[in-house]
């Protein structure tokens, strides 16, 4: 068990907690900044138009999937930039679970490697549109 103990010393629960905390903070900050930049652009272009959330039409296809959102944002479409910020926000807790998985692997904590892999699989399955809408 020497190697196990050494691994735990290098990646103690407390150190992992600090890393998880930093990751969450950076994720939320970056996502908010990206979305806010898109929001300012959008208001500059469409601020005086009338609002339309009364009736549900569903977003256009280019704002529904990660790939097309990234393309739209790189084409500097304001609504796609906001949506990219929101996708980064959704990705933040997913990145947190991925970091937890790395930590459990380094700690050689078999039970939690399995537990965390299950959660990560469910999250990726959802974000890549595995469930019929």
């Amino acid at each position, binding site marked *: 068990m020497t190697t196990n103990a050494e691994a735990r010393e290098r990646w103690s629960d407390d150190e992992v907690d600090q890393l998880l905390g930093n990751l969450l903070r950076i994720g939320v900050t970056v996502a908010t900044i990206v979305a806010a930049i898109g929001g300012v652009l959008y208001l500059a272009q469409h601020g005086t138009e009338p609002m339309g*959330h009364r009736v549900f039409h569903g977003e256009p296809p280019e704002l529904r999937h990660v790939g097309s959102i990234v393309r739209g944002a790189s084409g500097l479409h304001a609504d796609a930039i906001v949506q990219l910020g929101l996708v980064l926000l959704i990705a933040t807790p997913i990145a947190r679970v991925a970091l937890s998985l790395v930590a459990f692997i380094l700690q050689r904590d078999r039970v939690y490697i399995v537990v965390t892999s299950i959660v990560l699989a469910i999250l990726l399955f959802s974000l890549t549109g595995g469930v019929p809408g």
Partner: protein
Amino acid sequence: MACVLDSIHPMSVLLFTILVSAGSFSAGLLGALTGLGGGIVIVPMLTLLFGVDLRYAIGASLVSVIATSSGAAAAYVKEGYTNVRVGMLLEIATTVGALGGAFLAGRIGTGAIAVVFGLVLLYSAYRSAKPLAEHVSTDNAHPLAKRLRLNSTYPTPDGLQPYAVQAVPAGFGLMFLAGILSGLLGIGSGALKVLAMDQMMHLPFKVSTTTSNFMIGVTAAASAGIYLARGQIDPTLALPVMLGVLAGALTGARVLAGANTRVLRRIFAAVVVVLALEMLYKGIQGGM
């Protein structure tokens, strides 16, 4: 649908953005000050006050829930209260539940969703009016708690205090239900999560609230993917809601120390009851 703000008509994108940001800020501030969470009043506010379609409102609420829980979890996890192993284990239940809830939301009518929402609001108001007692024990842990290394310690003024985790399967089951409600209604389901972790699993309050908060972002992320693919996350609505609630929650957390929140809790609980009745009425009447 007729709504309160129809008098200001036609509302421009800019005015709508400002009003929704201000409303979301208040919701986030009150939610943080009273401990009820701001997410639960976002959907009623958007639908009843701003006349937003329920499906867009839930998508926007879900995004704001991820922002506030991740923002707060960043601070809590560093302070050593959060039990990451309990959180990871229960996230299996909440994420599977959230997928089910989001799937269900696309299959049942908005009237039924509004009725469930009203009932959850009523339960949350009741819970905040009748706080539960803390149960912490240092022995008699559930056999699974030992095997899964769930028992841990938390910081107190007298140093690190150990605690034993009870009723792991029952807590897991209730978390599945909390996940379904989160995916169906776009909320954090904090009231149910705390019930499972405080009352069933006997975690200390500080541990259960911070661990619940830690899990809320992951739970909401599980259903957010489905809402995104279904076109229910509207950037121009979700952005002001998310920024408003986040700023309100951060402000609330800053002024929380030393504030007497008893009166505020009562007022907020009363507001929640009114919103609950309105949601139930609209849902049954078919006005959603």
